[in-house]
């Protein structure tokens, strides 16, 4: 299970990587070049920005949800992702990077306030039951790295 310290460091790691990958994409002039995963880097950064905003705003409510409540069971995630990415299409790449930095800062500040008991509470996400801390580790930290990788590369390997 992720500790609070792991999560805080992980959030900081996402911020550092978002800035670094953003700079690389600036240098490559690659923000609008479709990646093998299907989205452009700009769309992937939009997705990370929107998911992190959701976590920052709905995370506290998640703590009160019943253990068996699965957000993904009642939501068409693919449709929601497409809609949110389209809604952010007018944003500049720098604005998206700034949004990611700000959102992960907010999530980190919220995580700081959680007790060990809250972090250990089991919840359900995408049909998997796990403690809140692992859910945050997966859907905030790993998920952001996953898409930053896809944004950073032109060819899958």
């Amino acid at each position, binding site marked *: *299970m*992720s500790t609070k310290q*792991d999560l805080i*460091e*992980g959030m900081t*790691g996402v911020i*550092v*990587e978002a800035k*670094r*990958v953003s700079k*690389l994409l600036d*240098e*490559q002039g690659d923000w609008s070049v479709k990646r093998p995963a299907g989205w452009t880097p700009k769309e992937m950064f939009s997705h990370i920005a929107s998911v992190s905003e959701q976590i920052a705003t709905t995370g506290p409510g998640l703590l009160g949800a019943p253990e068996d409540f699965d957000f*993904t069971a009642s939501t068409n*995630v693919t449709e929601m992702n497409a809609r949110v990415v389209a809604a952010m299409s007018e944003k500049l790449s720098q604005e998206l990077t700034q949004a990611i930095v700000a959102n992960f800062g907010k999530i980190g500040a919220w995580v700081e306030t959680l007790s060990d008991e809250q972090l250990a509470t089991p919840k359900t996400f*995408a*049909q*998997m039951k*796990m403690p809140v801390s*692992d859910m945050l*580790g*997966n*859907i905030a*930290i*790993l*998920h952001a*790295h*996953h898409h*930053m*990788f*896809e944004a*950073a*590369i*032109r*060819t899958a*390997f």
Partner: protein
Amino acid sequence: MATREELMGGLQFVPAQAKRVAVIIDGQNDWEEKRTQGWSAKEMFTHVAVTAGMIPAMGAGMIAAPPEAELTAGLDIASVNAAGVGSMAAMDTKQIVETLAGNYVKVSDWVKGLSDEQLAGKHTFLGMSLSASDLLMTLLVLHSVHHVYEAQLATPV
């Protein structure tokens, strides 16, 4: 460009996340289940372990390569990946996680031996011009977290 400190932090982050996610996959009893990307969780962890294991052996050649030389020229990445995954098929998942962690210790030691000038040296990887530190960050940190993320996810999100 990724700093040495960021790179070393990333090289510690990957095995820590791999160990954490391995516990989740153990709990879901999900190691052999194929993910939508085509590999099972076990195969994805193997791929991460093999990639880290190759770098100390191949890294010297990479560092010495001229900036314009495509590092993957002549390399059939799909075949290398398939052979790598096949090479550890007989291992159990605990052995794979241990190998992965051990390979990250070895590759960290190798990175420690690189000079700042070597880390800043430009190289071409899959058509992208990157510093060695950015290349290593992409290959050994983002790429690995990308697969660790995919390994834990029964349903794509």
